[in-house]
Each structure stands twice: as structure tokens, then as C-alpha cells.
């Protein structure tokens, strides 16, 4: 029974007792350092979100709901929808981030989100948006939108006048891009929905 020695059993704890505490932290005072890749609470870039709803569709727990929210580019659809995430259900798999076609959704390093009620951890786009248009930018964009709308109307009038001439849809870069994006964002959900 006593052939082998038991010295190491005693020396190891003693050696450890002299060391600094490495792993354990006093939690609220000291948070652990999170890597840049950390999948924490989402960060929404509201300036580029196109409200396509891909994130809501790919979510395995259906915790993302698209809700109306007023920020976003007035160049696009005014009734645009943004993701609202129920963190009571979210499992931080990151599929929504991967599938986002414009890469507007990211997962940040913030991980604490305690609340008093269940509704407290349903975070709307207002909470998620880390980047959004400033009031000035909104005003500028609105002016731009008006200008485009006016141009559109003018162009329409012109095309109506000129008949069904196809050259009428002249290439106006800003308008074209906006229209394209809108088309794309509308087309994609349909595809996904069918799938």
C-alpha cells in the first residue's frame, strides 16, 4: 500500500497556493477579456440595413422579428423594417450574421443583458443599432429623396409624353442604385419564402 509516495499530492496544492489567482475573477468588477470574434449582443448598422428579413428567416429559434422602425435611409422604403431580437430565445449561433447579404448585422463583445421582466430582454432595433443616420444626414437624405422623387416625376411625365420610348429610363446613377437595391431586397425574401 505504501510502496508509492504521496508527496506530489501535497506539494502541488502548496505550490498552487503561492501562485497568483489566474483564472477566477471577481465578476462584476472584472470582466474577462473577450476576443474580437466574440459572438455577443448584435450590433446593427442601420445605415446599410436593407430590411430584407434574411436574418429572421435563417434564425433557427425564430427569435428575430422584423419590426417597423423609423430610422434608416429615407431613400429607401419609408416603412422599412429592422430586426428585433428576443434574447430570451437567442442562442448566439451567428447564422443571422453570416447570412446577412449586406453585412449590416454583427455580433459585438457586449454580453450582459439582464432585465427584470421577460420583455426587458427583447431588444428592438433602437437598442441594437450602433450606427445610424444623424438628424442632419436624415435631413440631407430626405432632401435627396425629394429631389429624386421630383426627378422621377419629371421623368415619368417626360416618358408619358414621349410615349413608350425605352430610352426614357435614363441612367441616373443615384436613382438606379437605389432602385436596384430595392428590387434586390424585395426579390430575395420571396425566393427565401418559397424555399
Amino acid at each position, binding site marked *: 500500500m505504501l510502496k508509492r509516495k504521496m508527496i506530489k*499530492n501535497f506539494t502541488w496544492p502548496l505550490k498552487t497556493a503561492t501562485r497568483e489567482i489566474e483564472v477566477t475573477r471577481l465578476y462584476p468588477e472584472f470582466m474577462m477579456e473577450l*476576443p474580437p470574434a466574440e459572438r455577443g449582443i448584435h450590433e446593427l448598422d442601420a445605415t446599410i440595413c436593407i430590411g430584407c428579413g434574411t436574418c429572421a428567416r435563417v434564425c*433557427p429559434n425564430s427569435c428575430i422579428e422584423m419590426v417597423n422602425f423609423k430610422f434608416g435611409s429615407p431613400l429607401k422604403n419609408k416603412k422599412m423594417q429592422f430586426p428585433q431580437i428576443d434574447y430570451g430565445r437567442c442562442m448566439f449561433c*451567428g*447564422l443571422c450574421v453570416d447570412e446577412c447579404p449586406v453585412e449590416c448585422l454583427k455580433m459585438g463583445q457586449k454580453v450582459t443583458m439582464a432585465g427584470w421582466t421577460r420583455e426587458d430582454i427583447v431588444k428592438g432595433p433602437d437598442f441594437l443599432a450602433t450606427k445610424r443616420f444623424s438628424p442632419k444626414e436624415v435631413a440631407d437624405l430626405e432632401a435627396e429623396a425629394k429631389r429624386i422623387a421630383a426627378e422621377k416625376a419629371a421623368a415619368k411625365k417626360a416618358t408619358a409624353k414621349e410615349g413608350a420610348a425605352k430610352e426614357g429610363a435614363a441612367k441616373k446613377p443615384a436613382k438606379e442604385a437605389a432602385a436596384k437595391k430595392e428590387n434586390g431586397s424585395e426579390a430575395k425574401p420571396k425566393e427565401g419564402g418559397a424555399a
Partner: protein
Amino acid sequence: MTTASEVLSSIQSAFPGAVLDSKVESDRRLWATIDSKKILDVCKHLTAKLDFDHYSGSAGVDWIARNEMEVVEIMASHGGHQVVAMLKVKTPRDSPSVPSLVPLYWNANWYEREIWEMLGINFEGHPELYPLLLSDPLVGSWPWRKDFKGYPDYTTGERAVAITTPEGYTEYYFPPTPAEVEAGTVPKERPKYPTFLEREEREIKSDSEMIMHLGPQHAMVPGPFLLDVLVEGERVKKAFLDIGYIHKGIEKIMENRSWLQGITYTDRMCYVASLTNNECYCGAVEKILGLEVPERAQYIRVILEELSRIQSHLIGTGEFLTLIAGVGFAPWQYMIMDRERIISLIESVTGARLTHTFVRFGGVRNDLPEGFAEECKKHLPYMKSRIEEFIDLFAQDPIYHARMENIGSISPETGKRLGCSGPVLRATGVAYDMRKEDPYLVYPELDFKVVTGTRGDSADRIDVRLREMLESIHIIEQCLEKIPSGPIKTEAKIPKKIPAGEAYYRVEDPRGEMGMYVISDGGDKPYRVKVRGPFYATFQTLTPLLEGVYIADAVAIAGSMDGCPSESDR
């Protein structure tokens, strides 16, 4: 080396007409449809002549469109050759019944019970067709059939009988319909799992015996499973094992989620081995798609899977130490501290600590971050020295040896017969490792040994795990040197709808052989995913090992299996 086509021709020549349909996918995979009358003979022939001594499991598939059901028997060899034979047995859907393989393979018991309770396929000659994962009243609603409407089945509301228990709870049960009884899908007298009182009445022979729970709620269990032991004093005379307490129906859920969403569910089967589970599922889907994974992605996968193996072994061994030493035992906490470093390494790549959802079809989610190799080079030598210290510690501790040596010993033959795998089997001396047997990713290019033990007892299982960690560190070091630059995802576009096909993909989980059998019918969701978990197989071997040991040894044996009921129940 035996190849799949040789196996096929051997079966065909021995049993002309038995093989109804066959496909040789590669040298290592054989798909064959066998006449259900001949399946027993074919299996006998495979075992006796062709060295198929490993019954790896079976899967049931409900082909509702073809109005038939299928049982797929997965046969492999313990190192004799690398062929996996997938033998399909078809049976009509109205009265599904196939011969049971329990007389040939002891470990077919649970697999067949599961198929019976989930799909209603009767197994002729099965000794104890009790429900395994489901509760008694659910039996008969056959939840894995494609036409299952949920429980209680409101579409056939008249069938659900509500009973109010004396405690005031409402319970439902489904009496079999006359048609079902006639068809024979439901045994007329449905065998019920014995209740505790019935079992006490049946088993207790003298006043000095009692049946004691070591689960589902006990400090010993790593998750809920029922382990009743019949004890006389301190001596265990008989053990009864029942699982299904955390049956989540993951296989069924995955049939209702898109291919991509399925990855998140594989995480949750066993959260300490989520990367290998990811790999297994994605590998199977990649096989159906015929995708080539870029080399860099393969290396990243290997690095992370080996890191994940280290952390899994650390917590498995650490938890086990608490079982035989108490929670105050300091080296347990050292293992957890060391595991923290590994987890942080994994987290810096995947962004999550346990449920990684990292592997993607044809690649991985993230590239290695800047400075990952340096971090690894900092932590891995430290880990190595720590693990060597653990090996030292156990080697020189007399109490550890008194508690662990020759406790729960398995001989190599028994280990093969019982169907266990992973460190439990390797501790007996059988070098059976999927990384060598069924090479995947870049493992063939890496140099590593398969760690084996000699006695197959609890001490050996721990020893094998500890030395395996050293091998894993060795593998990671090689990978960090060899890893090429390049894309981490395949160029090919992954379609939303995976083309019809089927694949069986095996990986080496920290707990042993993990296999996934994935069938696609060309839809955007898997038609069927069968998970052949390593612990499910190892779990079965627990009861025979517990007979005749002390209660404290029962804890030591069950703990040294490094259990994960979450994965065995799915």
C-alpha cells in the same frame, strides 16, 4: 485490404439473390439492400468470414412516399479493414417487421428498441421490446414517422384518453386502434417498462437487499439517466439502466429545420464536443454534395477539433476526479483552470465558448485570428507540462491505484462485443480510432499515435485520455506548421436545396466513434438524420460492468466512462 466491392461480391456469391440493390460508393462504403429473410445469414457471414466484428448501430427510415420502411444496419470492423457496410432491410409500411439482430450482436438491443418505439418497426426475436427513450404512454404514436401530427395527437382526438391521476395531474395515453392491433404494429400486450415498485417486488429476494437510485438525480450523474442498483449492504448485485430523461428529439427537429439551421442543433447534442458534432454533420452533407473543402479550412477544423478534444477530456477527467475524491480535490480545479485556457483559445476563433456552430458546409465560419499560432505556442507547451504532471500525480498515488486498478475491467474481446468505442475501447488495447480507421480531413497527412491501454480498467481509461491529450497537442503543433494560406470556404455556392442522396460520415468524437447518417430527398431540409452517438454505445456496456462491485466502485466505473446523456438521448 478488403474493399467494398470485394465485400459485395462475397455476399453475392454466398447468398445469390439476397442482395436486391447495391451501390459501392467508395472503397470504404458499401450500400446494399438485403432481403429481410436473409439479413441474419448475411450478417453471420460478414462477421465470420469478412471480419465485420463491429455492429455500429442501425437507423430506421420512414419512406412514406414509397409506402415502405427501411432499417439500415451499419456494420464495420475493429481494425480488420476499413469498409463500412450499410445494409438496408426494407419492410412494408403497413405492417413493418424485420428480424432482430440481438441474437447476433448484444449491442443491437438499444438501437432496435429505439427504432421500434420511434417508428413502430417490430423486431422479430427481440428479447425486451420496451420503450427506451419515450415515456410509456407515448409508445404507439410513433413520433418519427413522417405522418406524426404531434402529441397529444389532436387530429385523432378521440384516441387520446385523458386520465386524471390521484395527484391531480392530467395524463394522456393512446390505446392502439383495432387496425393497428390487427396489422401487428402494436403488440397486443404492450410491454411496459417496469415501475420502481414493480421492480422492487420482482428483484428483491431478501431483507438485506434494497434498490437504490444512482440517478436520475444524483451527484454522480453527468446528466439525467436512471441507474438503479440492487445493493446488498455495500455490494451492487444488479444494475438497471434507463435513458431518455433528456430526449430532445433532435433528429426529428433537424428534419424540420433547413440544412444550415441543423448545424446549431448538432452543437447541443453534446456541448463539450460540439465541434466534432458540427464536423460530423457538415461532413455528411459535404459528402452528399460532393464538395471539396479548401485545405486551410480542413486544417482549421483539425486544430479546433483537437483543441475541443483536449477540453472535453479535461472536463471529463476532472469531473471524474470529483467522483472519487470529492469536490474539494484540488487537481480537479487545476484541470478546469487549464481547460479555461483551451476554451479561450477556441473562443478566440469561433466566438463562442461551448456551442460553437463553427463548421460550415465546405469550410469554416471564421479564419484564425491574428497571432493565434503564437497564442497556441504559448499555451500548448504549458498544457503539455501540466498533463505530464497529472500523469505523474496519478502514477504515484497509492489511494488512486487502490480505488481504480482492476475496477470495471473490460477485456478486448468483451469491449468489441459490447460495441463500445473511444477511450473506453482503446483502454482495453484495441487501437480503434476513426482518425485512422476512416480517415477524414487532413488526418492522413499528420503523424500521431493511437493511444491504447492494457488492462481496460478505470485507471486505464483515465490514462488513455490523458495521453490522448498529449497526442492532440502534437497534432495541433504539426497543423500550425503545415497550415497553408488560402480560402476558408469553398468557392462553390451551397444550394439551399441539397440534391437527393445519402451519406454516412464518421468522426472521432472525444468519446469515441460518432457517425451521422444523413438522407436528402432533394428538399431544403434533411429527410432523415440519424446520429450514432459514441456514448449511446458505451452507455449500454455499463450494466454488465456494475454487477458485483461496491457502490463506490459503481461511481468510479460510471464516471470513468465520461458520460454525456445529452448526446445519448439526443
